[in-house]
């Protein structure tokens, strides 16, 4: 007998009244709807709005479009895709974007997979130490490496201090110093740790018995790799590749630092320039393109992961960990790993650090060393006459960074945990499903496009909300929205592990909702909450995209401060600021590892 047949003596009205009475006893649903509303406003509205802007005449463009502001127009689409300017303003940057993204994706996949295999599956010497060292670049902002590159290899094409190579008498062609080549190289370096983490985890779960079974049957090592390991790893490999690609198309800071001197533009830098020159309609088109490519890529990834689950032999519980002996390859492999540590960590950080204590680049004489750029006073520069540690600009920027990013991260963490709670407890399924999806959505949207979307929505007053541009508020809100994927993932996974019995037993003991939150859930989830706050904090502190679009000099933060220093050619000071950012990010990551005992890999995957 089904429900339909035996409860139909109840009228729908009676059922709804009963539901209502129950809902009144428990604020879960109400909070869920509240969260949905907040995220609709912070995440969905800006993105929908920016897509509308593409077709709307912007203020100031009345002459060009021959229509009043606010009317529907195809002008911006035409200008970007099909005008005389298209090839310069769109097709060339698009080509550059694809070139950089795809090449660095492929390179980092190849190198990263080899390193992951060496670390996880072989008896590589010092693998414990190496697996930490090789991950370090992941914790640092990408443009740290871009700055290191200019520090070392800048040539005389643009003014300011030369790079070390130039200073030592080597003439470098432009293509080495700027543009596609260094951009690809730096982005590759930046993504390698990511591949090591994701592919390494997948390899760890791959049962080595499968491999051995193949070898027992007499297959050669190469054959085993090709016919057993590779097919089983394909989902993880594809997924890493797509995640990297989606991230790379929105990457702003590296092409900005390295592409500027030779007019090497990508979609992200073009978007920035369009906003800088008040071409909001065109900017909206760029944002839309980045957005669509990002969403399409990650939709593809989700779809493929679903497909992959069909043959989930990977992750059998008794997966055995057995390592292959490298034999004569031991030395070359170890050297390869060490070289990667040198290129990815030692050289760039060393160069940056050294550059901040040297007057002139590349000259290693005792008299050339100085601490002026850190703690000097009355320097012979136009602005910034004190070392950064003694300058108020630095401390102001540091304070804004920490206070804006910090408060946004705390909010994101709390919202993330609440989201986790509602996703698992909501009596209405649609509330949990839509909350889970909407909080993950910003992950699909490259930061620079998201920032542009935020700008278009919140730069003008809407109803009771005043125009927020130029206030810390817009940064604060954008950061929260941008960090929700990490925060909500942390919250959902923490709440999944907790289960509902612990809370139910508090209910039975007589604890109301607030009491359960504060006496049971939050204390138990203390570490998860810290992670849900720290993860957004680290990625917010080192992030550039949001700030470059949404910050104004009044809301200077560390990243915009250092980019301004780069623009003014204060190389040493800029490098010093970047080192400080890297330091904060590094310590934050170490703190998370200490607290959770797991590390970032899990956070990325779940």
């Amino acid at each position, binding site marked *: *007998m*089904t*429900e*339909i047949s*035996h*409860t139909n003596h*109840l009228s729908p009205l*009676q*059922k709804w*009244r*009963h539901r*209502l*009475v*129950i809902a009144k*006893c*428990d604020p879960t649903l109400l909070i869920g709807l509240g969260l949905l509303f907040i995220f609709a406003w912070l995440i969905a509205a800006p993105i929908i709005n920016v897509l509308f802007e593409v077709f709307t005449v912007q203020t100031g463009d009345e002459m060009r479009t021959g229509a009043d502001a606010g009317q529907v127009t195809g002008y911006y689409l035409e200008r970007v895709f099909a005008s005389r300017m298209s090839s310069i303003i769109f097709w060339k940057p698009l080509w550059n974007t694809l070139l950089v993204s795809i090449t660095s994706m492929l390179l980092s996949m190849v190198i990263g997979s080899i390193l992951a295999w060496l670390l996880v599956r072989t008896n590589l010497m010092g693998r414990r130490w190496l697996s930490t060292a090789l991950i370090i670049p992941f914790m640092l902002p990408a443009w740290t490496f871009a700055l290191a590159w200019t520090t070392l290899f800048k040539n005389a094409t643009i003014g300011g201090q030369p790079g070390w190579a130039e200073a030592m008498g080597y003439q470098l062609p432009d293509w080495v110093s700027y543009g596609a080549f260094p951009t690809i190289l730096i982005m590759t370096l930046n993504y390698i740790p990511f591949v090591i983490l994701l592919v390494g985890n997948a390899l760890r779960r791959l049962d080595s018995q499968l491999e051995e079974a193949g070898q027992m049957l007499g297959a050669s090592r190469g054959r085993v790799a090709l016919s057993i390991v590779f097919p089983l790893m394909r989902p993880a490999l594809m997924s890493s590749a797509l995640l990297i690609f989606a991230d790379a198309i929105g990457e702003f800071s590296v092409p900005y630092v390295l592409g500027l001197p030779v007019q090497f533009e990508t979609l992200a830098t073009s978007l920035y320039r369009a906003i800088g020159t008040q071409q909001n309609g065109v900017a909206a088109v760029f944002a839309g393109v980045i957005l669509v490519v990002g969403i399409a890529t990650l939709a593809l990834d989700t779809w493929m992961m679903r497909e992959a689950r069909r043959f989930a032999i990977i992750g059998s519980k008794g997966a055995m960990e057995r390592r292959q002996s490298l034999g004569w390859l031991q030395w070359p492999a170890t050297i390869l790993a060490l070289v990667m540590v040198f290129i990815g960590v030692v050289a760039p950080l060393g160069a940056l650090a050294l550059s901040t204590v040297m007057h002139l680049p590349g000259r290693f004489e005792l008299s050339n060393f100085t601490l002026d750029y850190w703690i000097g006073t009355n320097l012979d520069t136009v602005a910034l006459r004190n070392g950064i540690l003694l300058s108020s600009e630095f401390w102001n920027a540091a304070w804004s960074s920490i206070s804006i990013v910090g408060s946004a991260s705390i909010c994101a963490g709390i919202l993330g945990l609440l989201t986790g709670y509602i996703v698992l407890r909501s009596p209405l399924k649609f509330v949990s499903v839509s909350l889970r999806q909407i909080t993950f959505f910003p992950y699909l949207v490259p930061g620079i496009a998201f920032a542009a979307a935020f700008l278009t929505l919140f730069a003008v007053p809407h109803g009771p909300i005043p125009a927020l541009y130029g206030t810390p508020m817009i940064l604060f809100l954008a950061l929260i929205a941008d960090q929700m994927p990490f925060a909500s993932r942390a919250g959902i996974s923490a709440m999944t592990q907790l*289960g509902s*019995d*612990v809370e*139910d*037993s*508090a*209910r*039975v*003991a*007589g*604890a*109301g909702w607030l*009491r359960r939150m504060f*006496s*049971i859930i939050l*204390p*138990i989830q*203390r570490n998860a909450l810290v992670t849900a706050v720290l993860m957004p904090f680290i990625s917010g502190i080192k992030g550039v995209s949001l700030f470059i679009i949404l910050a104004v000099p009044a809301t200077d933060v560390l990243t915009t401060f250092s980019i301004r220093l780069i623009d003014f050619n204060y190389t040493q000071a800029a490098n010093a600021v970047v080192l400080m950012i890297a330091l904060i990010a590094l310590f934050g990551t170490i703190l998370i590892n200490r607290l959770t005992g797991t590390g970032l890999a899990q956070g990325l995957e779940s």
Partner: protein
Amino acid sequence: MSNITLNNISKCYTQGHPPAVDQVSMEIQDGAFMCVLGPSGCGKSTILRMIAGLEHLSDGEIVADGRVLDNVAKGLFIPAEKRQIGLVFQSYALWPHMTVARNIEFGLRLKGLPAKERKKLVAEMIVMLKIEGLEDRYPAQLSGGQQQRVALARTLAMNPGILLLDEPLSNLDASLRLSMRAELTRLHQEFGTTIVFVTHDQWEAMTLATQIAVMNKGTLQQIGTPDDIYERPANRFVAEFIGNPPINMISAETKPAQQLMHQAGFSMSVSEGTQLGLRPEGLQLSREASSSSVPVTINDILPTGGAWIIELTVDQDETSPLNLVHTTQTPPLWQRGDQANLKVASHAMHLFNADGKRQPFALTPKAATYRTSADVVSPDFSQSKIEDIS
């Protein structure tokens, strides 16, 4: 101290799926020890959670001590935190961030008891449940049995009128189970609390309960004393679910069945599809053939420590062999392959019609002589039940 009435309660988690609980009614008397028994997934936990207020009803009504806890038609619902019903979870669900003492104290704090009284109560509970010395430990530092006792202490400290227990013994090893079972009986007698105890272990139910409710697929099959359930199963499901090894079920229309009914003094006319159940311990084997006994062959003898399981095949010329299981507590004098003659005590026989409903036997006139000569080994749990409950 409390009684609970379930009036036609139903629970449907997902629309369109069969309900997890389907129109269950029962009356749980003040001071009863009610066991809800049934196979996994039959809706036992769901019933407990609905009584506790952790799930709401899809239909029906729950009343405790005259207070309506949940009524769909009238739109009434009292949330779990206001019901003052104790529930011990299958998983114990101790709060991992609180020490044992704090776990026990938490509910008392919510009740607003002053600190001194709380201390006293906590100390009492700790002594009563023999968890002295563990006060300052965290749940993760306790063994399963200790956690279980803390969970009980935490619930009992609130002195609930109704105590719901969801398979609280299932995670314990055999000896701990035995001592916890004795403990529960003692608590029940000492406090006079109404207890609803969920289990899928029939032995546990038989030894503990004053009343047993047998469930299957969300519906109530039978409710009654342990004796009722075993001696007078209301339907085929109950007969087959209770008893270990399970009851022998054969078609009542076969020749051996007819013969066995005849020797027990029952009329042999049965309708189509009727099944005859034979409790294994009610089978009697002898060497002498009589006109009414059924010839069988001993297939196998399995010692199970103090008792024996004997597998038989009825000697008959039909194509499909008819196998029966017999249990005895006297050492068997048989060898594998021996021929024997089978009779069955009348009280070990049950008749079920084609719908599975219990059907009374019609007696033949000479029945009385058989009914009194019950030299049958009684089932082991009805013995221990008598010790435990009286």
